[in-house]
């Protein structure tokens, strides 16, 4: 209580107000996450859960190649999706921030975010229609005379999963980059050009480094959640395009092996977090090296 009594009246009010959302997150997020950790060290014993501490689940994950394969594939898919999404999104964010009149900026952002909020399941399903054997892409290309036989490498495999996920997470990548670009002091760009830098060099030496925090945020906000999507691989991936999230879902809902599912979820979570932290660290180092 010693610290609390030193606070001003307003500070204590702020803390009191923050209490309900904080308690909610503790009860419905932190405690459940702890339960996942705990469960991953227990084992499923037919109908009940054996609560003796063991590393069996982790041993099984390490021993059976299927888990490693799925995890590797999931990380690769998330990585490619993140790269594609961020690279495709950057010019759009740049365009809205630098070339759209201020009064129309929120209209553009609104248009970009709408598809993100609407019927996720049906959107994923529709990619089947677009990429399918008689789909939009194939019938369009055949009609245009580009190909004679429908392309088959774009449905029921990893490619289809990547395209669909890249579409689903696009707005998530645009918004953080846009916010970072908006914060850039435009006079810095003028200064750079006044001092004789070309437009291209100004972009790479001034704009891009200053936009980096937004790019990093975009990378994290796409890379981490994509690992948890099981709908897209289920609908689009076919037999060879299943990911780790499908396995977690199967362990929980079909095989009733919650402890193994918990261990898999944790391994997936720790893997993405580690990669994200390394990425953030490398980025900081690279930015520091430049200034």
């Amino acid at each position, binding site marked *: 209580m010693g610290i609390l009594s030193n606070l001003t009246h307003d500070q*204590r009010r702020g803390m009191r*107000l*923050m209490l309900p959302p904080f308690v909610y997150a503790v009860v419905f997020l932190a405690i459940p996450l702890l339960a996942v950790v705990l469960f991953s060290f227990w084992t499923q014993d037919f109908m009940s859960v054996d609560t003796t501490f063991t590393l069996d689940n982790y041993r099984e994950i390490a021993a059976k190649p299927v888990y490693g394969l799925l995890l590797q594939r999931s990380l690769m898919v998330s990585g490619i999706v993140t790269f594609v999404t961020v690279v495709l999104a950057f010019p759009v964010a740049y365009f809205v921030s630098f070339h759209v009149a201020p009064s129309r900026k929120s209209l553009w952002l609104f248009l970009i975010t709408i598809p993100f909020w609407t019927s996720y*399941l049906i959107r994923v399903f529709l990619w089947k229609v677009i990429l399918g054997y008689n789909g939009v892409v194939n019938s369009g290309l055949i009609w245009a005379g580009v190909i004679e036989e429908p392309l088959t490498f774009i449905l029921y495999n990893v490619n289809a999963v990547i395209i669909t996920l890249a579409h689903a997470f696009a707005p998530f990548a645009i918004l953080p980059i846009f916010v970072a670009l908006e914060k850039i002091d435009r006079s810095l760009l003028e200064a750079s050009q006044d001092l004789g830098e070309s437009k291209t060099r100004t972009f790479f030496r001034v704009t891009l480094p200053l936009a980096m925090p937004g790019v990093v945020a975009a990378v994290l906000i796409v890379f981490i*959640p994509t690992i948890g999507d099981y709908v897209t691989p289920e609908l689009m991936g076919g037999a060879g395009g299943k990911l780790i999230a499908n396995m977690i879902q199967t362990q929980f809902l079909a095989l009733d092996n919650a402890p193994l599912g918990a261990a898999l979820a944790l391994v997936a979570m720790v893997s993405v977090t580690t990669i994200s932290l390394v990425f953030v660290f490398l980025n900081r180092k690279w930015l520091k090296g430049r200034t």
Partner: protein
Amino acid sequence: MTLRIYAIAYLIFLYAPILLLPLFAFNDATIIAFPLSGFTTEWFAELSNNKSLPRAIGNSVVIAVTTAILSTLLGICAARAGAMPRFPFKRSITGFVMLPLVLPEIIVAVSLLIVIRQVLGIGLSNWTIISAHVLICTPFCIAILNGAFQNLDPSMEEAALDLGETRWSAFRLVTLPLVMPGIISSMLIAFTISLDEFIIAFFLTGSNATLPVYIWGLLRFPGSLPVVMALGTILVGLSILLLTFAEIMRRRGIRRAGRKDTGGFL
């Protein structure tokens, strides 16, 4: 100029699946593929005869409305606290509350499933879905409400206090009307997220399927796909209406707070 063309092409890419929906919803064929055959409203008629659909919609609406109210209430607390002077651990607590924004949804689903089924041993119900939806919607509500609460001039509430109002009545009479558009916007967004959420709902749904869980079931039967397209068309139309209204409210809220619009929901 090339940038503008690229941005427009990108928008078309974003909207491609949604634009296809009505095409197949009115298409007179049971297979969802090109070429289109003819115009029909049969699928919409079939939709209105469906017996289990109203139940799923009812469930989803109950969940979405409850989620919208609860997560907006939590969001108001957090956004109001966010506009107050710094207190110890303010940033880390806020970060923690915002965490579900970047957490994979399957992790939220799995962790709550373990607690509810294995630890507490209670059955799954609408409330289990609501508890998870409130968790993932609150960060979005906070982001929207921050726009309404920050830069709100504190001297206005102080004036009300000096004139003899209580803390609560000052909030109700002065601040609440100013942030009302933000609150409506936040509720609409939370409603839309909850109504559309599948990944968590699929794990936590009890005997009563939500609308997306019901749609997921339909997607497995090729014969029911045209009906799904019709349903999807209605849902997308409805979401766009809700979101447009939410955006109008959000902008009005920011204007009332006397702030420049930085755009976007996030």
